[in-house]
């Protein structure tokens, strides 16, 4: 290495300057060997910064290398990939030289030799070779790790690995040198007389003649189109030009980017949170002072901007973890004898750094599961009439304030019957209960602790912890996991991850004269119980309060009674109560609170250990009015109040099972009544339900329209609701109450459509209907609550006339109205 560098001081290369710069350090490191141990330690301390930088850079380089290596398997001829890999190893080798990490240098050197041959096209990138290089990568990583943790290279033995790398360079692997290309270098660099030739490094025999002159020929050689240089100039000779290109690239990146300690970012986030609160108080205090309005508004804007940007600074693309997957997939598919193609989508979707860290393990688990349990061995796939190569798809995308990460495979899928049998065998579920569960419900059993369907425990998965860990980890960060599987078609695991961890949407509720924050993730709906209705709607079974929610019994937990068991409590008939219907880990219950305030985005602050052990609070937060609020943990409350999954099911009885099976069968519908007829509207399309005075409905010609949020929306009235309401209004004109109608606002494609109805009855899951005889699925109708119900055809609602006609129509209306 020193020899190599020394033979190129003639070239005016930045690398040379770098060499001069580092020279004293190098001398120092040479002296270091003889230095007393204490002095050595002191030196090490002084070099700490440099070492750390080296570690970070090398790790990044190795990460890149890993990715390139797995890519190389599919594109073995890609010169750019080879160049990238070579650079990573070379940079490590170059830097270790002057840092004095001998073990690392020797190993990197062995790898570099092999890579040099590979890059020059003298070796073909076949599978054993890539495996060898991956081993090299692991070896380098292990040493780096040891340097990081123990400040020394450790005692490991690399000779076996080095031997392996040398063996891969064996003549059997070496292609015949390409003389024509070497000749090209010569002709392009005739000045390459060979005074430096003897100092050329331990070059590979077949090409040594070509190598020697190449070094002084740097400049002319660079003038030749790059690819020729790459293929012709051999081994270490391009050392000088390589780092130069790299320095140039690194230089431009270094000018615009900066490494920042995560701790500092966290602190900044905290301070910004603090600033937000102070701003809120300033805004309140200055609200009445007109002189301050402008200033405080400016403060408001700047704070909001700052907060957004600090949050953005914590964002990282998911490619940071996705890039680890190709290697895992490669290694696993080889050891399991699978053939797998990895497809990655949405790599640049960004996620908070801490969340990214948190989903790394779950994601790895999921990928392992897909390979081990999902994708079948090639022969099985062929027998099943599938492509022998399985596809594993990783997909990241935004959905509202969540990032969705999907791991899907086209493997065997999960056999629902097996899941059920296993669950019964493991005593996770009672047989009679299992027989009542729907397919989708049964699938969710795989998330329960101690569950595994793999017939044999392999070293990859099957210890029955995988899915359990996936769910626990994802739920810890406020995310959700769903699994979807079709036998023979494949499995999709969907992770829903909130965008940031620090700030969560929450509903502020009041109880025991205090505010509490209820995370919205588990909140499914809110029910208001006025005092006069409380006695009727809240029912009791031997001291257990229950609420009839759309005909089903929902266990209730009174927050005040839970928090102050000793206190006096007003009964629900003496005050307004609100039921927050919560759904956590399959436990569904209603939390009864005294009042509701606004939903707020809250900044989660950790609680001290003494308060953590109470178990009901997951943290605390400071509200906009500077009040403190404890954040309730819905899962813990369920446990504390004794709401368990089975108890829940038992309480709901047969009714819930009926719904379970229905839910598995089809989509959900909003059941409405229009002038005496029942109809169904797909719930997914419903945006909102508005009760409006009849007079707000206007007509274009004879078509009813509604001015909805400043936009005109056609109103579908095939049921004649409007006419009925009109008639009713006329007959009851003596009463001065204006007739009201209900409009269900729906999304249809990219427009909004209103449907006039007289009542909204319920939400229910619909079943498909099949025509007798032909067994064909019928369209336009669904089975709702055991009655055949027509589905409103949203697409069939006529669009409104286009603009130029509208004015005429309006004139017409004016006339008709007149």
């Amino acid at each position, binding site marked *: 290495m020193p020899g190599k560098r020394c033979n190129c001081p003639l070239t005016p290369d930045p690398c040379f300057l770098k060499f001069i710069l580092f020279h004293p350090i190098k001398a120092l490191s040479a002296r270091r060997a003889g230095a007393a141990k204490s002095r050595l330690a002191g030196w090490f301390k002084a070099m700490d910064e440099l070492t750390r930088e080296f570690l970070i850079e090398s790790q990044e380089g190795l990460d890149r290398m890993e990715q390139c290596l797995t890519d190389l398997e599919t594109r073995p001829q890609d010169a750019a990939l080879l160049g990238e890999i070579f650079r990573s190893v070379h940079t490590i080798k170059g830097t270790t030289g002057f840092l004095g990490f001998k073990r690392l240098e020797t190993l990197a050197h062995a790898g570099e030799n092999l890579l040099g041959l590979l890059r020059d096209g003298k070796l073909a990138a076949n599978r054993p070779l890539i495996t060898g290089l991956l081993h090299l990568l692991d070896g380098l990583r292990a040493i780096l790790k040891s340097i990081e943790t123990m400040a020394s290279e450790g005692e490991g033995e690399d000779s076996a690995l080095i031997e392996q790398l040398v063996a891969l360079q064996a003549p059997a692997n070496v292609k015949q040198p390409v003389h024509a290309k070497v000749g090209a270098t010569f002709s392009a660099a005739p000045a390459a007389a060979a005074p430096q030739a003897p100092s050329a490094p331990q070059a590979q025999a077949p090409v040594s003649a070509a190598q020697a002159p190449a070094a002084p020929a740097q400049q002319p050689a660079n003038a030749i189109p790059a690819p020729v240089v790459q293929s012709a100039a051999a081994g270490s000779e391009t050392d000088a030009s390589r780092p130069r290109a790299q320095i140039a690239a690194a230089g431009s990146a270094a000018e615009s980017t900066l490494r920042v300690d995560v701790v500092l970012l966290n602190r900044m986030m905290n*301070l910004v949170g*603090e600033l937000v609160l102070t701003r809120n108080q300033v805004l309140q205090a200055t609200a009445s002072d007109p002189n301050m309005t402008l200033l405080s508004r400016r403060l408001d804007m700047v704070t909001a901007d700052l907060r957004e940007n600090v949050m953005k600074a914590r964002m990282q693309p998911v490619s940071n973890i996705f890039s680890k997957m190709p290697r895992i997939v490669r290694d696993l598919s080889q050891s399991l004898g699978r053939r797998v193609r990895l497809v990655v989508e949405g790599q640049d979707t960004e996620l908070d750094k801490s969340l990214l860290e948190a989903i790394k393990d779950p994601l790895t688990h999921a990928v392992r599961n897909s390979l081990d349990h999902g994708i079948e061995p090639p022969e099985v796939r062929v027998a099943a009439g599938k492509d022998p190569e399985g596809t594993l798809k990783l997909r990241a995308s935004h959905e509202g304030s969540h990032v969705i990460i999907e791991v899907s495979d086209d493997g065997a899928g999960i056999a629902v019957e097996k899941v059920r049998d296993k669950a019964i065998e493991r005593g996770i579920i009672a047989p009679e209960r299992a027989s009542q569960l729907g397919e989708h419900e049964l699938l969710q059993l795989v998330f329960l602790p101690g569950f595994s369907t793999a017939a044999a425990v392999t070293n990859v998965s099957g210890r029955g912890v995988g899915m359990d860990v996936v769910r626990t980890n994802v739920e810890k960060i406020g995310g959700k996991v769903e699994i979807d599987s079709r036998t023979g078609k494949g499995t999709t695991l969907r992770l829903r991850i909130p965008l940031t961890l620090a700030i969560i949407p929450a509903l502020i509720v009041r109880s025991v004269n205090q505010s509490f924050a209820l995370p919205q993730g588990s909140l499914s709906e809110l029910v208001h119980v006025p005092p006069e209705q409380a006695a009727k709607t809240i029912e009791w079974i031997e001291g257990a309060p229950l609420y009839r929610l759309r005909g089903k019994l929902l266990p209730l937990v009174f927050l005040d009674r839970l928090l102050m068991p000793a206190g006096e409590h007003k009964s629900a008939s003496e005050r307004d109560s609100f039921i927050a219907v919560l759904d956590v880990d399959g436990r569904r219950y209603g939390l009864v609170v005294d009042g509701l305030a606004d939903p707020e985005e809250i900044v989660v602050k950790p609680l*001290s*250990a*003494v308060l953590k052990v*109470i178990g009901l609070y997951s943290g605390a937060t400071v509200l906009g009015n500077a009040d403190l609020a404890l954040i309730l943990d819905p899962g813990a409350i369920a446990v504390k109040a004794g709401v368990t999954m089975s108890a829940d099911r038992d309480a709901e009885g047969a009714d819930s099972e009926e719904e379970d099976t229905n839910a598995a069968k089809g989509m959900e519908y909003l059941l409405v009544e229009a002038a005496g007829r029942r109809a169904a509207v797909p719930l997914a399309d419903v945006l909102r339900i508005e009760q409006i005075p009849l007079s707000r409905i206007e007509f274009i010609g004879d078509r009813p329209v509604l001015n909805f949020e400043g936009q005109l929306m056609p109103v579908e009235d095939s049921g004649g609701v409007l006419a009925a309401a009109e008639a009713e209004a006329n007959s009851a004109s003596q009463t001065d109450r204006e007739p009201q109608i209900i409009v269900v606002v729906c999304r249809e494609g990219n427009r909004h459509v209103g449907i006039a109805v007289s009542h909204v009855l319920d939400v229910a899951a619909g079943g498909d209907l099949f025509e007798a005889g032909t067994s064909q699925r019928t369209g336009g109708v669904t089975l709702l609550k055991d009655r055949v119900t027509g589905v409103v055809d949203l697409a069939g609602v006529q669009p409104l006339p286009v603009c130029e006609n509208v004015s005429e129509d309006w004139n017409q209306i004016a006339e008709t109205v007149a």
Partner: protein
Amino acid sequence: MSAATVSHKKVKASVLVEVCSVRLAETWFGVPITHILEIVGAVRPQPVPLAPAYVGGLVHYRGDVLTTVSLRQLLDLPPNEGAQAILVLESTGGCFGLLVDAVGEVLTVSSTDHEPNPSILDRRRKALFAGAYKLKDRLLVMLDPERLDPLQLSQAHPD
């Protein structure tokens, strides 16, 4: 801390200690200022339902949520209706707040005036106090911040 002051007395060396005096009902207590990060006046902590009784509630302190310890509760005094002051104390387990009725002045006392806890003191108080300094006109009962740490208290009073 208390151990240190006691040992100073034994060697008869006079070491000056700065102590912040705090009032609770009629009694003045002393807290070594080396443990005090900040004094925050007139706060109303947010109570935490189901928390151990000695927890006085939560206050917002510099972007964090601080757990406070109610000295009144620890000493079985009736709760104070008005606002209280908080000493933000630093202990091995982190920061916590100590709720007191009022904060007095910082006194410089000599370690030669220190006396250990009297043997007739009840056990609970003995565990909280770290002796007393004999001032000219009164006694200044010392509090040991380490022993007031909510984590320590949770081990001492598993209630």
